[in-house]
């Protein structure tokens, strides 16, 4: 038998399927179908952790996601996971679990000294004590974190895979209890696309925890099986088990997490561990049931004190005895269910302590008929036993329920089952901003008006606590949801069952003890955060009134369980104390997630080499084969440089730069943005978006253009070519291609819809290779049928021709200052043409060069790079590019350029910089000052934007944006560096360091 407290048969566990697991290093047996919590209880283990603040021994309180105490560290690094609720962890063979809030061990816990010092640890203690001096918080926090002990994050990377998926349906049903099953059935039968999400691995909800329920004349168990089979047969219905709906967002968008493999001892390699469902539905029916409230009495946190429904669950579903002799403490009829089921399972029920003066209700009657000892109008006033309940003392309540009278009677027991009423699970409804109303009769908050369309609640989640009502309301809600999606409701009537409620009740929020509150005993409201009723009252005495403030001051309702058991009790205690009514106090804000969600599902498969797309050019494989190192430019991966024979970067780049000037280089320029512009108004359009004049550009000619944003700042630059009468090709910088297209479409569609122009991105239609260097013309002539004479194809001209037999566009444009041809061929031919050029170019010493050499070459010529020399605050004038700005026409950004501020002489302007020591290379980004002070701060004039060693100039060169730079030519500036060095440099006459006359372009 799996555990000494296990019943020989019954429940939803497989009695013949033994599993082995360890808890705090000791080995135990459990059964398939157990949770970690039920397996521990079957082995007689109640005490599973220590409390957060006082390190009091704590036991398993619940049988579900509301559990505040039984938090476990499960598994070994790297699969170790903290803060799992033992009540939700499905037992698998070989599972390893540890208590996480005990040091050095659960049995002997150093932190328990906090319990002795508890008078000095009231609510708000951390705020009051550790906030001063502010600088010491980091030190305090280090120790507080260790003592608080909310588990340990794994140190190694997560070896598991996670999945994410979008999903859509007509009707989402949250919860697979009786109401949820009924809703899914009626919506599914009508033909709607239904997703039913159930956090458990079994359907049935609360029906799994009870015995003897009958639906349509058959045992509930059989009805559940039939419902499950019918749902499985409906083609448009999907049942997701082990799937928690953790969040309700706007417009019926929901977040769900499916646990795919955690319950498998050896998960198949191809399955993700968990899956995130991003679900959009037209209608939702919340059927999440209700959570039982515990009663708040003295030392109600002793291991062995559980909710009555949890006791029922352990007895009926998991077939075990959570104790040998029990006391039930209730204020309503439902507590008697636990008493009856325990008696049936052979647990001695010492007494039912009922706060109601006149116990009544259907279950009460059955218990009375069975002769159980019922103490009407009584309360538990003390609980003895540190690591396990040994004894309770009970006493009669006063008429107002605020005090007790008479001499308490001691009753020996090892189990206390408490029931303080039921709270509908309204969390998702409230996350979706639904409003609540207070139900005085049932003493609970119920869903009122939904804030979003298509949202219903049904069953216990809607305050229908009887099984018959659950089924009826679920059926109706499912049919209504389907009808709202246009599906004629089926004529199936609702299933029938007995309609038993838990009324009447006597709603006492705080059960008086033997001593004044806060003395000698603690009344816990929130066990996970160790918040007591006395703490709440202290907060009120200190002036906090808003329940949100009380929550934050006392931390009640925080942490991983978010106060699912304690919140309404806390509100009740606050209401009593301020003499108000619960709905006036109100609830705290419900926010996602309903239960904690592991980070892995948000990452999904967006990790490692799928983290972000790597965009490859058609020649990428050639660059790889030829040893290129790559750099990321946006999502593109561009060849950076091609080291040979052990060259370092400096040597490789120097060689590439010199080769271009000496003879011939080839660059993969595919990534440059290309926008095809067609239409009769194309020239006018260009004239408006560029700063210079475009109306007179001849066919076959190219022009450089600057594009500004509305604020007059440089946005992009590039060469645009007139391919035909009404046809242009614009090039943009690599990183800006999408933004420029968006900018242009924006103007075309919203400002100038009258212009007849069509834009199409053709960046990837072509493989682009640049031949650059004095030998460029000779190589191209070898492989092309184009007339390349300077007369036929001068600088800034274009021709269509064949290159290596492939139809190509040849642009004679240059970003190096050398004779250059930019060749566009159809992308699929890119590799072939590139290989032809590199092979045919061998006789000219053709050298592939990467982006780094390209940067050096253009800097030698003083050509800017948008995004490097500019940062969104730089005008054409700042760049010394007035020559590219028309004085006679309008263009985007023009009016901003006429602002006074744009003419300020001390704007940061682009200048060339030459270091005094030609060997020293300024770091890019270095700040420039006029005078070096002993230490910062010192007035900063600007920064270095580009800086390289230039092999062609035989020295370092740099560009910088400097305040009033154009007037500082010849001045010496200093770059004080972080490493203590200071580099002196002179503002050059020009940014053009090489071939200032442009002879080589001719």
């Amino acid at each position, binding site marked *: 038998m799996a555990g000494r407290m296990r019943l020989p048969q019954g429940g939803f566990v497989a009695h013949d399927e033994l599993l082995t697991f360890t808890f705090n290093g000791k080995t135990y047996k459990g059964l398939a179908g157990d949770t970690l919590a039920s397996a521990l209880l079957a082995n007689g283990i109640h005490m599973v952790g220590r409390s957060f603040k006082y390190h009091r021994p704590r036991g398993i309180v619940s049988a579900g996601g509301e559990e505040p105490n039984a938090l476990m560290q499960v598994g070994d690094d790297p699969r170790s996971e903290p803060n799992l609720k033992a009540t939700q962890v499905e037992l698998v063979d070989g599972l390893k679990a540890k208590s996480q809030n005990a040091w050095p061990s659960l049995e002997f816990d150093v932190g328990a000294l906090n319990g002795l010092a508890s008078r000095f640890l009231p609510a708000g203690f951390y705020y009051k004590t550790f906030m001063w001096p502010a600088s010491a918080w980091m030190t305090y926090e280090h120790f507080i974190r260790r003592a608080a002990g909310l588990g340990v994050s794994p140190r190694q990377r997560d070896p598991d895979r996670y999945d994410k998926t979008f999903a859509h349906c007509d009707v989402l049903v949250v919860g697979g209890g009786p109401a949820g099953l009924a809703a899914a059935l009626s919506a599914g039968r009508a033909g709607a696309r239904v997703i039913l999400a159930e956090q458990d691995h079994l359907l049935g909800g609360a029906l799994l925890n009870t015995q003897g329920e009958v639906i349509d004349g058959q045992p509930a168990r059989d009805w559940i099986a039939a419902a499950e089979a019918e749902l499985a047969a409906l083609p448009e219905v999907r049942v997701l088990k082990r799937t928690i709906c953790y969040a309700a967002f706007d417009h019926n968008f929901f977040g769900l997490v499916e646990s795919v493999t955690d319950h498998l001892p050896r998960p198949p390699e*191809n399955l993700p561990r968990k899956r995130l469902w991003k679900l959009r539905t037209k209608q939702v029916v919340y059927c999440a049931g209700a959570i039982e409230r515990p009663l708040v009495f003295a030392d109600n946190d002793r291991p062995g004190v559980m909710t009555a429904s949890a006791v029922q669950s352990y007895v009926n579903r998991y077939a075990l005895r959570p104790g040998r002799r029990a006391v039930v403490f209730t204020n309503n009829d439902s507590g008697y269910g636990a008493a009856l089921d325990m008696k049936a399972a052979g647990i001695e029920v010492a007494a039912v302590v009922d706060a109601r003066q006149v116990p009544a209700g259907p279950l009460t009657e059955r218990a009375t008929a069975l002769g159980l000892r019922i103490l009407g109008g009584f309360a538990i006033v003390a609980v003895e036993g540190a690591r396990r309940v040994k004894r309770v003392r009970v006493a009669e309540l006063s008429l107002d329920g605020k005090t007790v009278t008479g001499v308490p009677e001691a009753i020996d027991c090892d189990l206390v089952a408490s029931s303080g009423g039921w709270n509908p699970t309204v969390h998702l409804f409230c996350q979706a901003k639904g409003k609540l109303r207070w139900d005085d009769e049932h003493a609970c908050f119920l869903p009122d008006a939904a804030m979003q369309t298509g949202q219903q609640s049904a069953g216990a989640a809607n305050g229908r606590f009887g099984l018959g009502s659950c089924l009826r309301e679920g059926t109706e809600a499912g049919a209504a949801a389907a009808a709202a999606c246009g599906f004629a409701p089926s004529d199936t009537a609702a299933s029938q069952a007995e309609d038993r409620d838990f009324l009447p009740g006597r709603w006492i929020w705080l059960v008086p003890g033997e001593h004044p509150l806060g003395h000698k005993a603690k009344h816990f409201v929130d066990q996970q955060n160790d918040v007591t009723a006395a703490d709440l009252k202290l907060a009120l005495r200190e002036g906090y009134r808003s329940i949100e403030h009380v929550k934050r001051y006392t931390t009640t309702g925080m942490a991983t369980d978010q106060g699912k058991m304690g919140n309404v009790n806390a509100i009740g205690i606050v209401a009593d104390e301020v003499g108000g009514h619960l709905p006036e106090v109100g609830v705290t804000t419900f926010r996602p997630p309903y239960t904690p969600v592991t980070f892995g599902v948000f990452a999904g498969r967006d990790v490692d080499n*799928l983290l972000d797309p790597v*965009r490859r050019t058609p020649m990428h494989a050639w660059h790889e084969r030829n040893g290129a190192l790559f750099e990321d430019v946006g999502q593109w991966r561009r060849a950076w440089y091609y080291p040979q024979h052990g060259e370092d970067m400096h040597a490789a780049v120097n060689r590439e730069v010199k080769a271009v000037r000496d003879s011939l280089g080839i660059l993969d320029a595919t990534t440059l943005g290309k926008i095809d512009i067609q239409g009769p108004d194309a020239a006018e359009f260009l004239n408006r978006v560029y700063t210079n004049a475009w109306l007179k550009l001849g066919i076959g000619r190219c022009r450089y253009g600057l594009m500004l944003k509305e604020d007059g700042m440089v946005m992009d630059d590039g060469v645009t070519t007139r391919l035909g009468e009404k046809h242009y090709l614009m090039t943009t910088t690599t990183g800006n291609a999408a933004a420029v297209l968006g900018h242009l479409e924006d103007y075309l569609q919203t400002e100038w819809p009258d212009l007849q122009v069509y834009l*199409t991105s053709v960046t990837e239609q072509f493989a682009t290779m640049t031949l650059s260097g004095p030998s460029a013309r000779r190589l191209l002539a070898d492989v092309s049928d184009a007339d390349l004479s300077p007369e036929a194809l001068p600088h800034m001209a274009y021709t269509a021709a064949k290159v290596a037999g492939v139809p190509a566009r040849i642009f004679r444009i240059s970003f190096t200052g050398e004779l250059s041809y930019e060749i566009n061929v159809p992308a699929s*031919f890119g590799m072939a043409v590139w290989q032809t050029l590199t092979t045919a170019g061998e006789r000219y010493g053709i050298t592939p060069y990467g982006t780094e050499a390209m940067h050096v070459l253009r800097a030698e010529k003083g050509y800017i790079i948008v995004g490097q020399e500019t940062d969104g605050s730089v005008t054409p004038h700042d760049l010394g590019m007035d020559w590219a700005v028309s004085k006679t026409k309008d263009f985007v950004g023009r009016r901003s350029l006429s602002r006074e501020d744009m003419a300020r002489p001390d704007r940061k302007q682009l200048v060339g910089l030459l270091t005094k020591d030609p060997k020293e290379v300024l770091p890019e980004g270095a700040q420039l000052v006029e005078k070096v002070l002993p230490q910062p701060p010192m007035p900063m004039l600007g920064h270095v934007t580009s800086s390289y060693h230039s092999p062609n100039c035989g020295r370092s060169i740099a560009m910088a944006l400097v305040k009033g730079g154009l007037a500082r030519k010849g001045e010496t500036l200093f770059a004080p560096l972080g490493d203590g060095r200071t580099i002196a440099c002179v503002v050059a006459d020009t940014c053009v360091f090489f071939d200032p006359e442009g002879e080589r372009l001719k």
Partner: protein
Amino acid sequence: MIETYLRQSALDHLGLAGHSTAAPTEAGVQLSEKPLPVAVNLRGDSGDAAFVEAVREALGLALPTLPNTATTGEGLALLWLGPDEWLAMQHDAAAFAEAQLATKLRKALDGLHAAVTEMGESLCCLSLAGAQARAVLAKGCPLDLHPRAFGGSGHCAQSLLAKAAVTLLQVSDAPAFELYVRRSFADYLWRWLEDAAREYGVAVVRP
């Protein structure tokens, strides 16, 4: 004249032909690259009868005006991409068929305000078929591809798949889809698809 066998598709570097199968497969998903598609982007005014007629004459296909639908015939598909934008698609065509198709359209549209732009070189076409094809797409595409919502074969859409923009065309109710992605993203998207389809079993098949 350069030999057309020197053309490389966007996934040439993966050598898919070497590990693809022609045999029927039990895998939940069949994946392939349909190399070197022909595609011509078309812009114009569908309210202009002359434009609509000219396109019909040139392609032998009606211009689809219902959003996200395609008309097909004679190895050609014409996809609605926007109120004034379409994409003409063709497979298994000769090397310079794209230029020919574009020229045909340009001639037919001469004198109208329209734009014809060759696009096939910029695209990679992936084929995704099998019982779990929709489930794989759902992992990265926010659209509802259920037949009731998407419409089944002959419907198309521009959307995101993972972090790549795609044009998606359902070519069979089986279901089977063609995904058109810019060729620089093809390597990423292929690896993403293989990974996303792994739990269902994925077979690389001959196109």
